[in-house]
């Protein structure tokens, strides 16, 4: 199989294109009176139950104009049956971020339905009919916010118009509430179900007025996840749970060092083993994000496939494989850190001059963070059924549209012959943006001409991850005699796969802070060559940049002899020339002040105990965190409490939003405490949870969450809650002990969670 054209720039270009699709967020209209084209709404007929069925476009007018497919471009629908059932489609993949509940809530709010009347369904994946559907970049809520509100409001207007016609009243006299249209003065009322048929004959309105935030009845409340009952009773919700007919089970064995090819294997022996149906080599398509070379073992059961794999003997050609060695790279990074950077990302003033100036106090520090894995709880898997040139896929992918086009290209079939069933994913964190398990399952299914479930082991999942890249921040900075920040430099020694750009997640992406908060600043890169594959990991880039930069600001505050909180607020206040779409200093300061006041900043908590604060802006979210910790002389660390203040616009589902913050704090602490992926001669370790520790319930700190709600456009919460935790804890360790941790994970500096 040939290397597909979009991998000409290697894996980095492939992933950058993928992430670019996701982060190219659309700017929704600012006005609350939404103008609708007649074609934004399409009444569907022939659906079970009859009644009002409304399709609504989730594409922007520009996107529609360029596709030229005006008639059929809609992405979700709601259906109101004469019996009063209200079905709302959830268009985006559910990976644990709560969108299967939150997106339908947005429709339901404007529709004025009682939430108990709503049934949520996962919408089909179909690019022609539904536009782009993905879960990534915390984009699900902001991308869909206005459109889903308009959809709900328009259906509501049609129901009102139907009631007005029936009762001979004007629409302006009518109200809606709890799935009913009401005429207060006469006491007349009718349920949406009763009005559905008549409403379906109304024209969709050209303009609808959206609610003011103060009138929200459902949004901002705590609504439990719509799949909760199915989850707690063990229903087959996940990709791994699917069993197409006549299923075979497969494992796919790849080279321990990425990029290695199969020379030969004892396939004849493998085929004689109990329960083995077939064993064969696949060459791969040259794109490690799709199909790597390997050996497929197809069996009667997962266990038979796994056992046969233990008996595999493979001769690998590793001449083109990754041969990276962390220790060697770390040594070269230290050398590069004292040389001029290779790439200047942004620069103002003269950092070197400010650092040399004897009237300033200067600091230099070196921060190291290791590679980490996604390790979603559900190891990668996919089921595929190939017959008659057509393939069906079952997967909890984050990018179903990409999965379909990748499978079509790989198998050499038209994408209309690829049908993907979107399943719930047992965690994503960015890993399931990449569809290699889907491509492997599809290739195996095509080869055997049947149906197969491909199961990766945990070890496969770790060894073949697209890691969060490690890196080294050489920091420089200075404060003047008044204790104000006058210079800040972050020279990131990062990695490159293609020699020109940092790998996915390995670049500094300035958002205006702190580089625009002082007269002299520089953000810059140097790059080391890397063969290990890297990819987007929850809050890419931000998850480590926040730690290095906010920790170093803590060092500068200490150099100035200033309170860290006061110094942080002053630097935010000093932002000049803000970056469009970047940090809003007033929103930022408000989160910092709120977190600090709720945490009781300034309390003297005694020896070995301390607080640290950090702020970070990522994925459109402004988040501040205060960590309250204890640490003893033998570096036994207890995180007592984390107080979080977040401004992500209006809150859709308060329960889901708080869960995202609680989960992000746990994830961030888990990662900072003890997780590191190492590699020697390109071979990854560790490969399972015995040596890759996830945080346990005992070490979970109290987390207090406060949201500053505003009329700013909402952003998602999958990502922005994570970055500030590590620097808040690092700053707290310094406050408590006078020792500044500069390595992630902390275990590399001898810290253990007590």
């Amino acid at each position, binding site marked *: 199989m040939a290397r597909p054209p979009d991998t000409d720039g290697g894996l980095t270009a492939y992933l950058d294109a993928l992430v670019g699709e996701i982060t190219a967020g659309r700017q929704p209209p600012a006005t609350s009176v939404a103008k609708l084209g007649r074609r934004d709404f399409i009444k569907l007929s022939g659906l079970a139950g009859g009644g009002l069925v409304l399709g609504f476009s989730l594409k922007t007018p520009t996107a529609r104009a360029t596709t030229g497919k005006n008639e059929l471009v809609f992405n979700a629908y709601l259906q109101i049956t004469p019996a009063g059932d209200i079905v709302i489609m959830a268009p985006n993949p559910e990976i644990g971020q709560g969108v299967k509940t939150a997106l339908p809530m947005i429709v339901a709010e404007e529709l004025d339905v009682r939430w108990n009347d709503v049934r949520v369904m996962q919408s089909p994946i179909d690019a022609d009919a539904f536009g782009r559907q993905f879960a990534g970049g915390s984009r699900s809520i902001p991308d869909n916010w206005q459109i889903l509100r308009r959809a709900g409001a328009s259906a509501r207007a049609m129901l009102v118009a139907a009631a007005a016609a029936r009762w001979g009243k004007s629409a302006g006299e009518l109200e809606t509430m709890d799935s009913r249209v009401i005429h207060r003065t006469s006491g007349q009322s009718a349920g949406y179900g009763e009005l559905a048929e008549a409403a379906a004959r109304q024209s969709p309105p050209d303009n609808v007025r959206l609610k003011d935030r103060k009138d929200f009845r459902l949004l901002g409340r705590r609504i439990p996840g719509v799949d909760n009952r199915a989850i707690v009773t063990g229903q087959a919700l996940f990709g791994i749970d699917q069993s197409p007919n006549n299923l075979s089970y497969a494992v796919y064995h790849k080279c321990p060092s990425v990029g290695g090819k199969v020379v030969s294997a004892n396939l004849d022996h493998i085929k004689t083993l109990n329960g083995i149906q077939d064993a064969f080599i696949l060459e791969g398509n040259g794109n490690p994000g799709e199909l790597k070379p390997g050996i497929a073992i197809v069996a009667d059961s997962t266990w038979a496939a796994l056992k046969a794999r233990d008996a595999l003997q493979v001769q690998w050609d590793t001449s083109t494989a990754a041969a990276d060695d962390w220790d060697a790279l770390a040594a070269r990074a230290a050398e590069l850190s004292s040389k001029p950077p290779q790439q200047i990302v942004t620069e103002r003033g003269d950092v070197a001059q400010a650092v040399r100036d004897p009237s300033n106090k200067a600091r230099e520090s070196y921060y190291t963070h290791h590679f980490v894995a996604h390790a979603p*709880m*559900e190891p990668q898997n996919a089921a595929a059924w190939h017959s008659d040139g057509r393939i069906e896929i079952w997967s909890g992918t984050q990018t179903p549209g990409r999965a379909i086009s990748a499978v079509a290209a790989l198998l050499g079939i038209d994408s209309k012959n690829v049908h993907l069933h979107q399943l719930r994913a*047992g965690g994503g964190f960015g890993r399931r943006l990449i569809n290699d398990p889907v491509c492997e399952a599809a290739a195996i299914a095509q080869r055997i001409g049947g149906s197969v479930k491909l199961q990766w082991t945990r070890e496969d999942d770790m060894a073949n991850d697209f890691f969060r890249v490690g890196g080294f921040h050489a920091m420089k900075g200075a404060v003047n005699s008044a204790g104000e920040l006058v210079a800040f430099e972050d020279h990131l020694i990062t990695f490159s796969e293609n020699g020109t750009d940092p790998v996915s997640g390995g670049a500094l992406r300035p958002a205006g802070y702190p580089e625009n908060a002082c007269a002299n600043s520089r953000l810059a890169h140097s790059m080391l060559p890397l063969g290990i594959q890297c990819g987007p990991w929850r809050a890419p880039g931000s998850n480590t940049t926040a730690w290095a930069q906010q920790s170093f600001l803590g060092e500068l505050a200490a150099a100035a002899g200033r309170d860290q909180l006061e110094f942080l607020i002053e630097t935010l206040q000093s932002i000049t020339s803000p970056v469009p779409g970047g940090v809003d200093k007033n929103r930022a300061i408000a989160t910092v002040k709120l977190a600090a006041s709720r945490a009781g900043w300034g309390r003297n908590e005694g020896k070995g105990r301390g607080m640290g604060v950090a702020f970070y802006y990522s994925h459109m979210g402004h988040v501040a965190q205060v960590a309250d910790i204890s640490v003893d002389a033998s570096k036994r660390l207890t995180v007592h409490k984390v107080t979080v203040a977040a401004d992500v616009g209006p809150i859709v589902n308060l329960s889901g939003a708080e869960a995202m913050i609680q989960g992000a704090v746990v994830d961030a602490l*888990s990662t900072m405490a003890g997780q590191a992926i190492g590699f020697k001669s390109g071979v990854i370790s560790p490969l*399972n*949870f015995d040596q890759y520790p996830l945080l346990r319930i005992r070490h*979970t700190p109290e987390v207090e969450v406060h949201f500053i709600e505003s009329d700013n456009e909402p952003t998602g919460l999958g990502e922005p809650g994570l970055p500030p935790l590590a620097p808040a804890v690092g700053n707290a360790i310094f406050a408590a002990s006078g020792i500044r941790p500069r390595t992630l994970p902390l275990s590399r500096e001898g810290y253990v969670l007590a």
Partner: protein
Amino acid sequence: MANYSLTINNRRYDVANVEPDTPILWILRDTLGLVGTKYGCGIAECGACTIHLNDSPARACSLPISAVSGMRITTIEGLSDGDVLHPLQQSWIDNDVPQCGYCQAGQIMAAAALLNRNPTPTDEEIDTAMEGNLCRCGTYHRIRQSIRDVANANRKKGGKSWPDHLTPMED
């Protein structure tokens, strides 16, 4: 290859022609279609595959079928009594615990085993019993709260209290 007769969720299953070393996890999932029990690590480190063996928590990924024959197995599918949820399942819904949800069957089974032997655990006892169950999404706050809520309800009821269908069967 061997044949086994298993008692799972108070029902008898005959499993023919399987390798004696097959972990009960894969028998449940592949052979019997009981997919509520999850695979997470395969080495008894994550708890996603937690089931009950004679009412005690066990890791299905690391127990060969030959070792569990004759024992009473309960999986997440058998924890509720028809439509009547186990108090923990209801508490999990009320506290909106699941994020991705993948670990939750194992979490609930571990918690249910705890309440079987100690209906009113302290926070410390909860942390100890739940130590072996990992949640990658970080739902621990709500897991703890859900168990606490049921433990508190049990306390009000005067101590020992568990749903009838969890009472150990007569042999």
